[in-house]
């Protein structure tokens, strides 16, 4: 039971990281904006609490994938902005590639017919 929980958490974490990187790759953005972008690009299918975004952001920042700076938002409020670092860019490309391979692999596997095995 415990193990299962961990596994799903890891799955979620990996996916969220990928989505965050993707969202930030579209341009410098603050946390709330990143959330909106993710909802937008994923068609609103990401079912998490909004606060869960921040641990991911902090982690990616620590890992050197994201850099931060304070700036002013559209409606003149002080906001912390996230920027994709070159390391983050490389990581994003890597993950995009393996993700599409995974999708392709699962697709192939699902299309398999009995006589192919």
């Amino acid at each position, binding site marked *: 039971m415990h193990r299962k929980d961990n596994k799903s958490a890891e799955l979620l974490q990996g996916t969220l990281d990928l989505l965050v990187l993707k969202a930030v790759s579209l341009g410098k953005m603050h946390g709330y904006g990143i959330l909106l972008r993710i909802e937008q690009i994923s068609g609103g299918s990401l079912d998490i609490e909004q606060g869960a975004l*921040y641990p991911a952001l902090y982690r990616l920042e620590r890992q050197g994938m994201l850099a931060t700076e304070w700036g002013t938002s559209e409606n003149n409020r002080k906001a912390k902005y996230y920027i994709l670092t070159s390391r983050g860019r490389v990581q994003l490309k890597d993950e995009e590639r393996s993700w599409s391979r995974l999708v392709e692999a699962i697709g192939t596997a699902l299309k398999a017919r009995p006589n192919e095995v």
Partner: protein
Amino acid sequence: MFRFLHWRSLFRRDRFESEMADEFAFHLQARIDDLMRTGLSPQEAERRARLEFGGKERYRAECRESHRVHWLDELGRNIRYALRSLRRTPAFSLAAILSLALGIGINTFIFSVFDSLVLKPLPIKDPARVTFIETTTGNTHSFPDYREFRDRAKAFSGIAGYRISVMNFEHGGEPNRMWCYLATGNYFDVLGIRPAAGRFFHQQDDLHPGASPYAVLSYTTWQTRFAGSPQAIGATVRINGLSYTVLGVAPKEFHGTEMFYWPEVWLPMMMQPQVEVGNAWLEERAEWNTMMLGRLKPGITSVQATGDLNRIADDLARQYPLIDKDMHMRLAELGFMGSSLREPVEAFAGGVLLLASLVLLTACSNLAGLMLARVTDRQQELAIRVSIGAGRLRIVSQLLTESLVLAFLGGIAGCALSVTACKLFSGWHAPVDFPVQIAVNPDWRLLAFAAAITLVTGLLFGLGPALRSSRTDLNPSLKGNAGISLLKTKHRFAVRDLLLVGQVAVCFVLVFACILSLQGLQRAITQPLGFDPQNVTTAAVELGSAGYSEAQGKLFQQRLAESLRSLPGVTSVAYANSLPLSVDQSTTSVESTEEPGKTGRRRAQANYYEVSPGLLPTLRVPLLRGRDFNEHDNAHAPLVAVVNESFARKIFNTNDPIGKTFRYGPQSPPIQVIGLVRDGKYVSLTEAPDAAFFGCILQTYNPTTTLVVRSLTSAAALAPQIAKRIRALDPKLPVYGAGNLESMLGFAMFPMRAAALALSAFGALALLLTVTGIYGLVDYSVVRRTREFGIRIAVGARAFELLRLMLGRLLVLVSVGLAVGVILAFAAGAALSAVIYTTSPTNPILLVGVLLALLVSALLASWKPVLRGLRVNPVSALRCE
């Protein structure tokens, strides 16, 4: 860098917290704005925004966690993960930890022995500046020569002379035989040590023969004899019947300068005539009994010091050409009475360490193979992890952590093993009348070594598989099973193949070395000793130190022999100063009277014994020509000797030396040869035939008396009876070395026994590891190819073809491994010969035998999985995936 981040987050915690609060507040406000724009009331918007955001405190904590996490946390996570995954395969984990524990334990133990014998400096002041001084032909000097070196050497701040000796020690109760160092007055000052209690003796305490009755106790003696009492200082003890004053106690960790010898007391050199009664040599130029050690002056190199010594040696050679001609000095490291003993000890310890590391290497390659199989089996899991965003570095570090956790657990167990072994080894006493002791104290050096090899081991068997895993190809791994493509499988096995080849090769070397040395031991046991120890009991007394004069001593020896002859079951009794293969051996230099002229230290050396009439028959030494001694060969008759074959050849160049004469030197009287005996073993079982001669003890007298009693049966009770008869004649005389002669030979056997034991353990361990390795490989390949076999069986493959599929590759690998092993065995021959005792290192029958045995073990190891492969049910095999 991570450390820096960590540090920063510590010191800027307040700022970090307030920024996080600002960031969350901004998020909520922006959300509220957006929600209000959709027409919600401010209150409703705020409620919704908070709800959507979730537990603020929880995320704050998680953010802190995410930001704070540095490599230690990552390591912690990896370790937890590793432990979990190791727990899932308890059999594998246990086997791995056990083999690592044995490998690391053996290596650490042998390193500790090696370290304390060879590497660790002595507990003296600036040990690197103190050196042993020897000649190119021996490790001892005459005492007059020592005085010359001490007084004339300019390169040394001091040169001390010393000698290992034995005496009768009495302090309340019965006298005991005790081992000591006779040491010149400057000894402790040259070594630069401080007493644990009282004071040491100094130069001015050691000026005139017989005038310095002082004793320095070893720490152990102080504790056991005087209960560590401060009153021991100044106490009077009796040594060989004379009163000595205890001056002080040596430090606990100081046991003199010989690594294997723990003296019980130190006495001033000037007491030599009183300690070695009847054998005063302080003024003898031709008696080489003194060892020398010196402290180099600051800035003096060993080359300069050697030159300095040789300048004096050349002077001495000119002054005393008959004795000191061709004397060349050299320096050696302290610890083993010069290089003649140190070199074989170093070679032996080094050789054993080499073999032990080979065992560890086998364990490593075995584990690497198993880890590789684990990784291959977990490819699907790893592929998933990679696909959900775990970096390759992360996976490598995770797998590596697994290996290191295994290595660490094995290392801890190994450390415990080696500490136990060290304790046992230090507590072990050789079964001889000599304080042989080697202290191997587990200390930080042991820990450091264990930690280092644990780390290296973990990396060795973990890095390869971990790196391999990072090359995981996602597609086939996720699709079903990598086993589908046979071509890929072949490639994947390349590393494992190499590991197996290496393992088989090392295993061959170890097993071959093990069998060779066991065979050597067997041969040594059955080899003619030159005498028959069976049913012989011995006991020894030292009459000189007990105060006997020569006349009294001679009488006592004869009365004692007479008394023992009447013991029931005794067939003959004789005595000698020493017996072949005992600890106490004497050599002397001799020359033929027909062919003098060989001078100085180049003259022929021979082992010599002073024996009573009847000793040679009692020991059953085969007499080839001439006669044994009889009671007419006494002090009034001309000197006679019985010599062995090698002596006859070396000194007289003949097989029939009867009637020929030899002498110790130009001034000494001639000795006539009356008998010829077969060569035997004298100093060690492994020695080449060496010259030896026996003199008649009635003509010379030697106060050291070893009784030799032959009985009808091996009477275990005889030794105490002999001791009883001795006490009946003199109740104050300490008896030592009493027991069965056969078991006393254990001393001569010990090095070989130890080597054979170690090698057997290594060989067995390596064989076990290799067999499990082969089993693992075959089992794994059969499991992976179950489907293929199913198909093949379904389409009508015969058993033979399946066998070829399963075993062909294995046989090739094992054969290559064996071939490499043979080459290695020959290449390592030189290193191994220090450990292995053998007369023919390249015995072809043995070689083929070991090869076949390993091949058969390989086949046996693969038997079970192969049978399973043959019995694959095609229907279930095809369905299983």
